[in-house]
């Protein structure tokens, strides 16, 4: 199955092996014809209107502003507007460094997002700590606190790269099972259990 979005040619994607393995994994137990068709319909809608949370801590946030402005204009892809409340957003673009003091706050924001929710780790800091690897106060990658769906390297990534990352996310959403698929939710719960942050349960 060739999964693509926004009329991107399939060959133009960088990591088709991953999406193929994901599809195979999901298909292992067979697909119900009726539920499968509903899944496709729902996912078509979902993957074309993912709205980000306005969340930026540093430099990457400014590129995110550029992404929203007229030149790069993310609204043309259906990512429309950044929402200020996590309750109205589909995914967090973790744009910037996350430090110790911010870690519980980010986790709480993640918990407040409505299901299904996604995370893009934007920029080297969010991916791995980046240039602040030796710091005493920086979390070395947001995947220590919340599960990450797409990693987007760069310092900061250009708006074009951000577009690509969100497209990758929408591709991932396209193959997921919305109805039958509890796999994703289970994985999330597992992750959250392994990385407990007390007192921020939603």
């Amino acid at each position, binding site marked *: 199955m060739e999964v693509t979005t926004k009329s991107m040619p399939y060959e133009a994607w960088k990591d088709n092996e991953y999406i193929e393995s994901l599809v195979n994994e999901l298909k292992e137990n067979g697909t119900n014809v009726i539920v499968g068709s509903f899944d496709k319909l729902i996912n078509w809608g979902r993957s074309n209107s993912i709205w980000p949370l306005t969340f930026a801590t540093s*430099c990457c946030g400014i590129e995110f*502003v550029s992404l929203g402005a*007229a030149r790069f204009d993310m609204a043309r892809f259906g990512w429309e507007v950044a929402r200020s409340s996590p309750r109205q957003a589909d995914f967090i673009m973790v744009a910037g460094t996350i430090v*110790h003091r911010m870690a519980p706050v980010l986790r709480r924001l993640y918990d407040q997002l409505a299901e299904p929710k996604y995370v893009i780790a934007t920029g080297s800091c969010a991916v791995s700590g980046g240039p*602040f690897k*030796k710091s*005493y106060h920086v979390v070395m990658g947001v995947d220590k606190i919340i599960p990450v769906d797409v990693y987007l390297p760069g310092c900061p990534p250009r708006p074009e790269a951000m577009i690509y990352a969100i497209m990758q996310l929408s591709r991932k959403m396209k193959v997921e099972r919305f109805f039958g698929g509890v796999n994703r939710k289970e994985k999330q719960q597992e992750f959250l259990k392994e990385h407990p942050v007390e007192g921020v349960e939603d």
Partner: protein
Amino acid sequence: MADIQERIAGQFPEATFDTSDVLTVEIPDSKLHALARFLRDELRFDFLVTIVGMDWVEKMGCIYYLQSTSDHSRIAIKATTADRENPMLHSIADLWHIAGIFEREVYDFFGIVFIGNPDMRRLFLSIDWKGYPLRKDYDPSLNPVPTENERQSDFTDTYVEHSDGKVVKEQARVFEEDDFVVNIGPQHPATHGVLRFRTAVDGETIRKIDVYMGYIHRGIEKICEGLTYPQTLHFMDRMDYFSAHNYHHGLCMTIEQAAGIEVSRRVQVIRVIMDELSRIASHCLFIGTFCMDLGATTMLFYTLRVREQILDIMDKTCGARMTFNYETIGGVMQDLHPDFVKDVKELLAVLPANLKEYDKLFTGNVITRNRMEGVGKMSREDAITWSVTGPSGRASGWACDIRKTHPYSIYPELDFEQVVMHEGDAMARFKVRMKEIEESAKIIAQLIDNIPEGEIQAKVAKVLKLPVGHWFRTVEGCRGAFGIYLESDGTVNPYRLKIVPPCLPAAAAVDHLTRGQKIADLITIGGSLDYIVPDMDR
């Protein structure tokens, strides 16, 4: 300066002097407050630039940099204590308002307690942080990533000295007992990053704001101590990412002057053009985000148009849209792109029309004027005692532009005005920035046609070692005076690299400016001060 030295020696016979950089007066802690008062009142050093906390292993202490607002000369006070267990110094928070915040920063990083400071809490790190990270013997394994929500306390400590010399720790309330406290931030779109205000309100009126910083404190100063000089440069891009060129310029200039490296005229010109382009881009984004804070979302799209044009120019020459890492010690990374002159001229050609458009759309708008005029008034005295420099300070009638007061690079030869306004309200802060765009364009126009030929990189030792000593330099960032304190022990790494951000005082002054104002004006006032949170947090 010799005259000043004599006058201080006459009043304080125990003072010793060091004239290797800025005149530094070393004084025992007991006379610190008296000397600071003498310098402020008698010798007119009325602007506290910064307090540099220091750990020299055998002793700890602070260096206070003062500046005169009349003749712009600088002086430094140095006070030390040999006690590492319970280091204490006397506070000067009653002389300068901003000193209270600076002292909290030193306490946070070095654990030096200031006797008499009314609010001795941590500033950047959380309340349960163990140890003091900028001490040389700090162990980072003490503080893993927290798995719990941050503990919150409504109390603060003060250390009071009794008449018999005994220092007693006392507790005080941050807010009144019956205050209604609303939390704003750290995740709030109008705080320009992750800044947190605990706001005591009486209906719609703000009674007090307690500012919490450190939600993006990345420990740059400590990391730099383990890096070589060229490696420290790239952090300058990542603090105030709008002033990337200016901050780079500042650190490169400090290191070059310390190492005695001469840079060519071509490099100087390129650096100044880049600084001023950054300033235009930064002020454009300020106008956009500030208007967006006030609800005029469309302005962002207009101002980003100019910003994108500048970013394209940068992209061609520096290879990046942000975080350029362009200036190097002794030069710049690459030569200018062949299109550079053409592109900049195109920018200068469209700029006046754009500014006119901003004025037409926003400045004269009746809603704008109602929301901004007379809101968040800051007097000149307030700006000085809170050390609010840059366009915000100049809007209060304080001529504090480093390009004029302590000219560096080729600025003395250039013809430009220092924009100063006297209203001190949000509108004035907005207008100063609008005018500064014009002034920056004027500077670029003078230079763009005569960029001299020459080397773009001076010869610099592969392994750069600075001589033993200390240097304090400032440059004008887009948001105010940006300072670098560099201390070298003769090795390849800096012994201490203290960064003096212009945004820290601006955020600290929010409490003072918003008292008695409406809560909706908090957004106007915060936006007009234009602080960048990663800059203040470092």
